[in-house]
């Protein structure tokens, strides 16, 4: 056999063999590194989709949504979801300024998620409210969330004549535990439901 052919066969054989032997190392080296770390926060309707969310809220009637958190931070994470409720005039979380609402949390949902893991929790909520005498104001009494009664006394929503609604806003802010400083920090994310209080 021609020496040149032998050389070619040998080079190809050695290259294939070296690649096969090195494949466990190459598997690790050729994986595209994770460059962005982020957390996902979502709210789905009862049909597990991003549509047909509850809007017209009758007194003491149960409504279902699903809250979810996805962790792509590269490590095990400890979150706090602050449940808040406001009317149109009260402080809201700001998507552009990345600031949370100044309102106090009604309830804190503690969430732990492993890296690349997700957490989902069905939420069943109902509102106990009543109207004032001339039907211009809704006074809230309680929000019942997954069987836990949260006090809403002192909260009210005025009639919005433009929208023809009594608007209430139930929202969920995501906070994350920073073990370096030993406290929770706002994670610049929130999901919310705008609700119309109707009989």
């Amino acid at each position, binding site marked *: 056999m021609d*020496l040149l052919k032998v050389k070619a066969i040998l080079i190809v054989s050695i290259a294939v063999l070296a690649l096969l032997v*090195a494949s466990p*190392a190459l598997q690790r080296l050729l994986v595209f590194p994770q460059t962005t770390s982020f957390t996902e926060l979502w709210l789905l309707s009862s049909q597990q989709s991003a549509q047909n969310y509850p809007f017209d809220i009758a007194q003491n009637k149960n409504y279902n949504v699903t809250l979810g958190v996805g962790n792509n931070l590269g490590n*095990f994470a400890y979150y706090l979801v602050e449940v808040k409720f406001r009317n149109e005039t009260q402080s809201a979380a700001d998507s552009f300024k990345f600031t949370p609402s100044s309102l106090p949390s009604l309830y804190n949902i503690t969430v*732990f998620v492993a890296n690349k893991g997700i957490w989902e929790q069905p939420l069943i909520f109902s509102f106990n409210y009543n109207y004032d005498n001339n039907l211009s104001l809704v006074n809230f009494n309680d929000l019942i969330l997954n069987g836990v009664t949260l006090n809403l006394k002192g909260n009210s929503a005025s009639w919005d004549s433009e929208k023809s609604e009594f608007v209430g806003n139930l929202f969920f802010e995501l906070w994350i535990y920073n073990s370096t400083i030993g406290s929770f920090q706002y994670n610049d994310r929130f999901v919310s439901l705008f609700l119309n209080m109707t009989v």
Partner: protein
Amino acid sequence: MRIVHLNGFQFATLLLLCFLILIPTVASAFAAPTASQADAASAVASAQNLLFNCYNAAKAAGGTGANVTVLQVALNDAGGSLSNAELAYSNGDYNSAINYANQCQSALSNFFSEANALKASGEQQQSQTLIIFVGSIVDALLAVVVGYVIWFLLKKKYAN
């Protein structure tokens, strides 16, 4: 029936005696909520600290690449109890706050041993992966060297 008439001094003494007997009862009735609040605050703070420590243990175990799903489930279970304990405390329901805080601590009773076992197993897996990684690179280099030696010998043979 004989009616005893007390003078001013006797009446005052009797009144003082009654007052001294009633003081502990009245004081304990008023002091009970404060003591319970302190107990609840302490129970909730203990549960919070335990949860932070368990989280750090889970984070360390997760850092080794171990599957920490079991730890995540236990932490979320305990976290739910802690959330309820904090709510009960803020509502002034100190007994419930203590109960929920205790539930939180119970849910994490074997947590550290599980987290340490998972961490050890993850570290072992990591070292095995490292050995395979280095071994495969060394083997690939060896294959190239062997190929070069074969080529060298073949070239020598063809030259002859």
